[in-house]
């Protein structure tokens, strides 16, 4: 177990290392010059050179990369070109908002997706199944930002016009400050992230459960007189969980894209918003930091999923 874990962590670290190298190289060969961006359009060449020297951009590439990597191991991701704040600090400060959104969105996605998938699979071809298929196709077709804008229009604007102000338009309240306000501000963003992601799970659970319910051991369970509900949830779902867990790890990267868009629409000051702002400002250290953090989460998620396998499926042996 420990050997398995350490090997997975090592390969994860290598992946992150490769990504950091590629990112660094890409930004080095980029045609745009951050020094010129920061100095402003009216700056003279002298001023641009000064900015370049101050940021350390005039050093050779290898030296800069070495400084970057050694800094990384000390938890130092450099400083923002824009407001000179340490990159790690601004990332950590925004992490709670993004994590709240991501976890809540995932819970909504799983709850919606699994419920609809089971409902559809229990009676294939019924009206419930057709409704489920419609849900899946809509979810797969609708872009996250359209879902978010429509939710905002209906549940914030139309309700407010009718005199029912429950959902706020935008913003984020930390959980530690006021848990109720935290949830109230996040309900619409959660649904936005969850609705789009739920479609994949609904389709997966439906197709897997339909095929599992045709297996011999399900017939055996039924012939023993076990209630249908118990057959579905205890015997059938047990074997559907493994592909669902795989899907979570595959979806994790996609989910992050949804977060970027949702944060922008609902005015949540999270990491996705920071990434977009930094892209618009040409703030390279922050962009690299945000990418690395996102990749770190993807790597951690895939390790956790491998561990979950071993727990869910006794046939999987961890070597």
């Amino acid at each position, binding site marked *: 177990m420990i050997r398995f874990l350490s090997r997975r962590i090592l390969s994860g670290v290598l992946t992150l290392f490769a990504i950091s190298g590629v990112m660094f190289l890409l930004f080095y060969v980029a045609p745009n010059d951050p020094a010129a961006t920061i100095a402003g359009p009216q700056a003279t060449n002298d001023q641009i050179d000064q900015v370049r020297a101050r940021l350390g951009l005039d050093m050779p590439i290898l030296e800069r990369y070495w400084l970057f990597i050694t800094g990384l191991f000390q938890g130092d991701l450099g400083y923002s070109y824009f407001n000179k704040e340490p990159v790690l600090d601004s990332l950590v400060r925004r992490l709670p908002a993004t994590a709240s959104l991501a976890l809540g969105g995932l819970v909504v996605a799983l709850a919606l997706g699994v419920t609809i998938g089971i409902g559809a699979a229990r009676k294939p071809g019924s009206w419930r199944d057709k409704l489920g298929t419609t849900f899946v196709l809509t979810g797969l077709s609708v872009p996250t930002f359209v879902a978010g*804008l429509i939710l905002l229009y209906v549940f914030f604007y139309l309700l407010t016009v009718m005199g029912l102000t429950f959902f706020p338009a935008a913003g984020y309240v930390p959980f530690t400050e006021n848990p109720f306000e935290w949830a109230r501000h996040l309900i619409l963003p959660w649904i936005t992230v969850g609705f789009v992601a739920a479609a994949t799970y609904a389709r997966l659970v439906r197709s897997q459960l339909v095929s599992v319910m045709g297996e011999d051991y399900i017939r055996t369970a039924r012939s023993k007189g076990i209630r249908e509900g118990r057959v579905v949830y205890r015997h059938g779902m047990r074997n559907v969980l493994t592909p669902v867990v795989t899907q979570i790890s595959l979806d994790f990267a996609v989910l992050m894209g949804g977060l970027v868009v949702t944060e922008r629409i609902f005015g949540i000051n999270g990491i996705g918003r920071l990434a977009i702002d930094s892209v618009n400002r040409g703030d390279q250290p922050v*962009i690299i930091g945000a990418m690395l953090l*996102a990749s770190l989460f993807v790597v951690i998620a895939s390790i956790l999923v491998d561990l979950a396998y071993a727990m869910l499926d006794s046939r999987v042996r961890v070597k």
Partner: protein
Amino acid sequence: MPEPTVDPVVNETPDEPNAAQVARSGNEVAARSPFQLVWTRLRRDPTAMVSASVILLVIIAAIAAPLIAAWVGHGPDEQFRKEGLTPSGLPTGPNEEFLLGADNLGRDLFVRLIYGAQLSLIVAFVATVGALGIGTLVGMTAGFMRGKVDTVLTWLMDTTLSLPQLLFAISLVSLVGPSFGTTVIVIILFSWAPIARVVRGQTLSIREREFVEAARSLGASNWRIMRVDVLPNLVVPILVYGTLLIPQAIVFEATLSFLGLGVLPPTATWGNMLAAASTGSMYTIAWWMLVFPSAALLSVTLAFNLLGDSVRDALDPRQTLFAKKRRVKKLKTKEIAK
């Protein structure tokens, strides 16, 4: 080299009478190509026909965009600050002059919507063709060569698939600057991997088939075998994935444009039209700026997804076969019970 073009299974579906029946009824046996068979099945599928009509309509509108603009009398980027805006500077809603209303700069929403369709479709088609080309080439090479080449290419696919796509896309855009070309390239860069994976899997099984062995024993080169023997057998998965990739590319482009990192204004795209609706909560005073582009985007992606599903069903009638098999099984159990 005898090579079955049509799976024998195909003749068992109830749609097409099998050869023996046709011969008995005295009619001449007309050979049907696989595409004819698929077409017959698709034509009987109402969902496929409706979605195909929607797509066709949008394509015609997109091609006729300049004509429509001339007919309405409004250019896509023309601002009508007098007619399109109220004296206080707010956009006017749908009326006779502006069929779907005007936007915040007094531009005709209807004309912009059609020009947006043109752009969405062009980006989606170019990106899809590019991604299919790269995906097929990489997947086929990996599956056919196996060994070290396969290891490297598979690693490349897995890494691409596990990257947080949108985040990497926006950081790439930040490097080269947003434009039409950047958008297409970014979409291709993040879309080829799933196709490559599917193609690789198919190639792995095809390369073990007898006709590949036959070709090799005749001294055909690897390149020739891949081109002549393997590629034609990959057409079905490539076609299905292509239809399903188009809506994804449309959504990708719209998302990038919405974030201001795709095709830049004033060029009309559905994404930046929706961005205009969301900036400063414009949609609260002009619902048409939100509703019409959203409806256009949703109906086109939905139509492509539905058509993709139908094409897959038509190309792969195994689902009907499964139903048949089960029926046969049940009959047998009944007979045994007797």
